[in-house]
């Protein structure tokens, strides 16, 4: 089947006066099929958001990008004006904090109209009608009121709905959700996730859901990619990866979550923290935090290898677990 999004060997480097200072992405490979929800998980600093920004062509100045990003089989770099012409139209982004993602001095309606002005030839009245329909679609009561409201007049949940409505204005093929529910209360978050599933059902867009919350991923993702130190270290269906993880890092993330069975026992924390500078790593980047590491791990750079049908892990000892 043709992939909606295909990221191949994506590397990002930052340099200072010609010398590479950091390489936060070290060859990310991932694919999203049309209508599929891919969860991208990992700790802070693993490269989750950077991957999303690279797909949108929003990398900070001075970042050098290697590798390819193809949308619907077309390289983003081959499209006229690059990713900028795709942004908001073919790919949309929903940010983590709906309270700060909107501009506080314009109404929701004004901000949504900007998107249409850029991508669609619509009259003012048409645009207004379209925006009101979208606001209704995300189940906001009284779209008219939301249209004329400033961001501070709406609750976090309502803002996130408005943000999703805005992202869907041009019927994008791919929606990137960067921690869409982290800033919301659980009951509100649940409704937002349900909304995303419902809209995916009716529009069939693909979703890249960036989250550090494995519970959220378990609830709505079809497949999962676990990122560590700028690489995908395990990928497969949500069921496979979360129920029978094959990389020690994935197991660590799952073990660290408190659950009913952990009451009264210490949690299995992953020792240490994510390396902040990713240069000159020869072996496995996780080896220094891994309980299963052997000498070979420091020497061999593990690549993603199939461990089961549709399930890959980058660990030389994945067969043993």
């Amino acid at each position, binding site marked *: *089947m*043709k992939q909606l999004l295909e990221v191949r060997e994506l590397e990002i480097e930052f340099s200072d006066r010609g010398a590479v200072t950091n390489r936060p992405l070290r060859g990310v490979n991932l694919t999203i*099929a*049309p*209508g*599929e*929800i891919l969860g991208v998980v990992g*700790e*802070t600093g693993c490269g989750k958001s950077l991957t999303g920004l690279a797909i949108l062509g929003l990398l900070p100045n001075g970042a050098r990008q290697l590798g390819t990003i193809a949308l*619907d089989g077309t390289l983003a770099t081959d499209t006229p004006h690059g990713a900028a012409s795709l942004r908001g139209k073919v790919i949309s982004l929903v940010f983590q904090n709906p309270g700060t993602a909107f501009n506080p001095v314009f109404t929701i309606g004004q901000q949504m109209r900007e998107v249409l002005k850029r991508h669609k030839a619509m009259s003012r009245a048409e645009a207004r009608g379209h925006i009101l329909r979208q606001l209704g679609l995300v189940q906001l009561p009284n779209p008219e009121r939301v249209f004329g409201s400033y961001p501070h007049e709406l609750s976090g949940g309502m803002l996130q709905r408005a943000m999703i409505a805005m992202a869907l204005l041009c019927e994008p093929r791919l929606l990137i959700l960067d921690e869409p*529910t982290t800033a919301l*209360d*659980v*009951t*509100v*978050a*649940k409704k937002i*996730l*349900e909304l995303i*599933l*419902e809209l*995916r*059902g009716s529009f*069939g867009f693909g979703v890249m859901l960036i989250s*550090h*919350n*494995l*519970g*959220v*991923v*378990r*609830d*709505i993702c*079809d497949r999962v990619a676990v990122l560590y130190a700028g690489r995908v270290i395990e990928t497969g269906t*949500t069921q496979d990866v979360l129920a029978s993880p094959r990389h020690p890092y994935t197991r*660590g*993330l799952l*073990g*660290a*979550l*408190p*659950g*009913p069975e*952990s*009451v009264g026992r*210490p*949690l*299995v*924390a*992953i*020792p240490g*923290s994510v390396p902040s500078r990713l240069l000159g790593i020869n072996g496995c980047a996780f080896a220094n935090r891994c309980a299963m590491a052997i000498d070979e791990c420091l020497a061999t750079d593990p690549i993603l290898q199939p461990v089961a049908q549709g399930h890959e892990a980058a660990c030389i000892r994945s067969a043993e677990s």
Partner: protein
Amino acid sequence: MTALLQLDNIVKTFRKQGKAFHAVDGVSLAIESGQTFGLVGESGSGKSTLARCALRLIPPTSGTSQLDGQDLGALSRSQLRRARAGTGMVFQNPVAALNPRMRVQALVAEPLITHTRLRGPALQARVGELLDRVGLAAEHAQRLPHQLSGGQCQRVGIARALATNPKLIVLDEPTSALDVSVQAQILNLLRELREQHELSYLLISHDLEVVRYMSDYVGVMRQGQLVEEGPTADVFAKPRHDYTRELLDASPGSRHNHQLVASAEPVTIQL
């Protein structure tokens, strides 16, 4: 036995444009020595306001808060300050809670200078001991907050809360800003410290699993009221209030939630 912290009918009313808003609306609860009381509820339900009233960081509109049998409302300012030395508080955003221009050494020494007579080498030694207790190395003492990770900053926050050997520590969303792996480290540390020092915690969190993991008792707040309260296992196994059930159902990844996945088949569209 008197409870370590006893709150009776705490009410806190804020006025906004002449309209009264009951942030906390008549809450009573008791925390026994050595116990952890978990407070859950959505943002705006009054959890943090209640905790601040409990330590009288803000005065409640009515109701009393007794710490170790002492009514905090009846104390003079200097007496209140001495009473507060028996408490500590850890905040949600570990980086923002620390003065960015103070080094770790000075940050941890601050409560000791305020509440004790320790100075000079004795003070230094106590700071070193506290850093060691929370799992920080001696080299961290000379760092500034921005040179530390979020988890390390929270360890500094915990060291500050522990400095005066308190009996009660209020933990206001201590791990919400942290990654799960770091959260596990911090929760383990808090459990160890509780055992070593026979601490009581008032733990505020919106994460039900964190509350279940840490607490002996749990209280569920909604719109300023405590709608359900009881031993943690009971509340989680047999929630009696509708709102508690709703919270449990909404908790991401909870077993109640699996129908969410089942009902939504991936849709493939024709290209």
